[in-house]
């Protein structure tokens, strides 16, 4: 099975019905993508499949064969000198000191990054709608909303997606 994750190609000998979440975490060691519920409700496992936000806990590996996957580990850009430049959403989450426990944050950030690609200048209401299917048990919702709105401003209408 061929898979591209964060720009790197993999050939995997994994059953096709295995969920993408466990392939990323347990086979590839990319544990930044989190398990929350396993039934697509909480959003902690959100990754990008060909740029779209997807719940990896529900996605069978066979369904994403050959796809371009991006996870939280591959969201920041690394320039030629090896310096990591955070994605605007990540930077906004740092600026607003958003995460508490952090377990849901990879999913929140991947959801927000994908949303802002489709809607670079959202109203606050649109942001709330787009982010309301991602649980944050610590209750960081006020800051998540502010940070996503800020990230939209930071992106200045440019492409902020992957």
């Amino acid at each position, binding site marked *: 099975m061929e898979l591209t994750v964060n720009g790197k190609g993999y050939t995997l000998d994994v059953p096709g019905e295995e969920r993408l979440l466990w392939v990323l975490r347990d086979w590839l060691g990319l544990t930044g993508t*989190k398990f929350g519920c396993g*039934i697509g409700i909480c959003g902690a496992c959100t990754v990008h499949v060909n740029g779209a936000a997807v719940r990896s806990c529900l996605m069978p590996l066979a369904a994403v064969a050959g796809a371009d996957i991006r996870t939280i*580990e591959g969201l920041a850009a690394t320039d030629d000198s090896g310096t990591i430049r955070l994605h605007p959403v990540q930077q906004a989450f740092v600026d607003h000191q*958003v995460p*508490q*426990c952090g377990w849901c944050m990879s999913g929140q950030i991947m959801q927000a990054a994908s949303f802002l690609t489709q809607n670079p200048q959202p109203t606050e209401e649109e942001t709330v709608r787009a982010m309301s299917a991602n649980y944050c048990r610590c*209750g960081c*919702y*006020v*800051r998540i909303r502010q940070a996503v709105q800020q990230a939209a401003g930071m992106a200045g209408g440019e492409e902020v997606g992957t």
Partner: protein
Amino acid sequence: MTRERDGYDPVEAREASADGESGDGGAEGAEPVRSTKRRWRLTRRGFLIGLGAAGAGLAVGAFFGRPVLNEIMAESMAEAEHAGSSFMQLPDDPPLWLEVLEDSSIRLSLTKVEMGQGVHTSIAQIAVEELGISWDDLVVEQADTSSRLVDGMGTGGSFSVATSYGSLRRAAAGMRSLLQREAAVVLERPEAALRVAGRGFAVADSPESKVDFYSLAGAVTSWDLPEEETLQLKATDEFTVVGQPVARIDIPDKVTGQAVYGYDMRAPNMLYGAVARPPTLEAKLVHASAGEAAAMEGVEEIVIDVENGFAGVAANSRSAAWSAVKAMETEWDEGHLWQQEEIEALIEPAGEGGITIQREGNAAGVLRRETAITATYRSPFAVQAPLEAPAALADVQDGQVTVWVSTQSHERAKGLIAEALGVEADTVRVVPTYLGGGFGAKLDTGVAVEAARLSRAAGVPVHVGWDRTEAMLHGYLRPPTKSVLSGALDGNGRIAAMEHRQGSSDVAFSFMPAFMEMVMGADFGATVGARIDYDVPNRTVTAWRKKLPVWTGWWRGLGLFANTFAVESFIDELAAEVGADPLQFRLDHLPDSPAGGRKRAVLEAVAELSGWGTAPPAGRARGIACFGSNTVVAQVAEVSVDEGSGEITVHRVDCAVDCGLVVNPDGAKAQIEGNVMWGVGSTLIEQAYVKDGRLELNNFESYPLLTMRDAPDVRSVLVDTGIKTPYGMGEPPIGPVGAAIGNAFTAATGRRVRTLPMTPARVLEALAGGGP
């Protein structure tokens, strides 16, 4: 500032352990063996509440009788709430906290775990402040059970900063002072002529004359704290780091996916474990066999121990383990199949066994004579539901047990593992990772035991991560409560008498030895927030401990949320009876005491913040509520009610909090915001029930959480009333949320919902004039 990740890597961690044992660890190697001088600063009550002082407590009981003892204990525990008593202060020996590393940076080892409350950052601020070094010269490390600082308290109760602050200040100031003494010798100048410069000391008027911390540390022969008068603690008004909104040190790793939690732990050759779960509340395993699991692909090990109720499997993938455990053949004695109605009948605050925890005057007598108002408030079972389910990696090899686990108490986990495996505790090392939420759920981490049992059988590291359904069903829950409040008013609009009869199942008592139950009488966890702290001449609070077939225990704020909902809703009901403004009614009943003064300050602050007394926006109404332990909180909720659908919308919650000295104001505000969301979720949504012998829980479809759509705005102010030490912040702000929302609901509709959560069905029932 850097954060060491060494402790999270199984291989490196083992090496680090070996180094530590040889005593060859930088400055530590030069440290002489010394006796631990304990500086007990005991108050009478501090003495009484110490676990080791239970015998003394019993002696008091023998002289005065158990009711008096139980009342004293309850008062002591209320005084210790969210600040700890002097007995609980961590030790202040510098080497237990701090070590000078070879590059002259200073390492701070913390027994407290980071679960999102920002505690690693705020405790680091205290160390940096007193060491006088710059932020970048401190390294923060998570301590584990191999640390010489044995922290039996774990991380909870909002105690971490409060019980570290004084000790760590002294340890850090002491280390600085001892290093400075050596620097004076090396630089041949008086100590007063020196100052901290980078990672060493320099002569103030000739900065090129300097010496680094590491060479100084090698020369220190005793790390005993200097005498009190030479231990120069900074004056709090000279603080430059404590009190600042320092950026959290764990956040960069949490936005890039680099932070490692218990569920993320990996090791070479590891397997994945899963364990069979009882199908009912009372189920006992009577028979188990491998069944079809034996032949399933990927299954490496099957462990069956019927006597201890254990049947588990280790496989080469998590999916294989989860499938295999379902294919095992297990037979259970299901026990009594409990129904919710039976549970509710049990929680009645009446009959034998009530323990009076507060008594002044003769409330019962006044309530019999006067016209009494009575109201009953209820709260349901609730789940902590940290988003990271329980998880641990265990490696049992060569007589050594090492476990990496998402835990709020690595010391407790160590004890449980040693007991389950039948090994000496000193062969067990438990390393806490980051926690993907705790909220009390991870003070008891059975998953660590499961991973250890499977690893011992398999001979390789085994990771056990629960799925969401296991996490919902097989931990402990917030207990259901029933509070019956009665009150009588005099002719001047004042409360003449008030009584609170409270029924709850166990919180703290679920985890304590039986003799402590006799000393304490009432479960301090179940009763937190139940006291009547207003100036009422006749008042009684009595708690009934009810045994339920459901395991109940720690949950954010313990009983605080449910008890404050009851007491503060009832205060509004009394205010309404005399037509008083709810804010003014509270102010009028504050005791003339320092505690009363602090509560006045937060009530007045939240009134100003919320515009109390001005008209709310059209269609909305406001409600107020407060709570005070050491930390004092007042809140105003602004809500609207859709009388067609029965839906309550909480638009905003304003909060004023006095938590004593604030170490990190942004972190404190983040805790307020989180607590408000918890309170709103518990007021409007969260509930769990028993049906046919099991909890009616499965995954988030049966226990939805609050989402951003329903999240209110939160505004907060931190009120300074001149307290010079920090109190707790992780839980107190959850207290008033339910009552503030309920009081606002009543202001909007003239009706009241006294049973939580305030679901649309209950709201519609109340609007139609029904409900309890």
